[in-house]
């Protein structure tokens, strides 16, 4: 099953965070790899969106959209470094 890159997260994350988070630098809790959210491997043919570390393939982000809510699970992310204007 193929994946797309983390730019595919832009719309969903912008809706929740009101800024484009794909330029933020995330750190993987599995291997410590640091890289832009846009570099994640994103699987969308699933009950939710799953983003994995490009280095170790650990799940760093899960996003589930319900009817009137979204669940964002970031337990695989140590931190997000977000550029500010």
């Amino acid at each position: 099953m193929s994946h797309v890159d983390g730019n595919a997260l832009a719309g969903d994350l912008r809706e929740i965070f009101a800024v484009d988070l794909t330029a933020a630098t995330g750190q993987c809790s599995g291997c410590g790899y640091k890289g832009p959210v846009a570099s994640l491997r994103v699987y969308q043919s699933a009950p939710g969106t799953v983003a994995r570390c490009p280095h170790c393939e650990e799940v760093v982000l899960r996003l589930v959209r319900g009817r009137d809510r979204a669940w964002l699970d970031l337990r695989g992310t140590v931190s997000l470094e977000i550029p500010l204007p």
Partner: protein
Amino acid sequence: MPIVSPGFTGRRQSPDVQLPPGQYLAEDFPVLTAGPTPRVPTDRWQFTINTEAGQRYDWSWQQLVELPAEKITTDIHCVTKWSKLGTRWKGVSLDVLLEDVETAADFALVQSYGGYTTNLPLEDLVDGQAWIAYRYDGDELTPEHGGPARLLVPHLYFWKSAKWVRGIQLLLEDEPGFWESAGYHDYGDPWREQRYQGD
């Protein structure tokens, strides 16, 4: 009264077919995955049941396929809203695998190669409700559909039927799995449309 009768072509063509609420009928078999597809050779495959007391029960691939198997024809319902009717599987009932397992557990956390997990009450895995399936539609189960073996629990949404199954941890307390900890319903009964937490 229609002039042209659809004829006796079976349930698949019937306009009267009953689907769970919110579902539509799929003719193909969509492939859903939350990560890279694990490829597990059967000579390295193992299925393990761990009890809450730390007891461990293992089966090799050869041991699994030598157990009494059943042919199962069942409807399946994915939480992404497709349903597929009359799917045909072959596998070993969890009743067979759990027969000699001593446990006081009420819950199970199913674990897969690749790291996926899903939870369900142990009572939903017994009494002819769940199988370790290794054939689909007369052929070996392909890796895309969870081969070499997947859990089959067709009375719950299909995310509970874990692909690439490698074991079950029996638990005294419920522990949410991969999707259940990210917004999906803990139980997932398609007839009660238990898609998300709070449904």
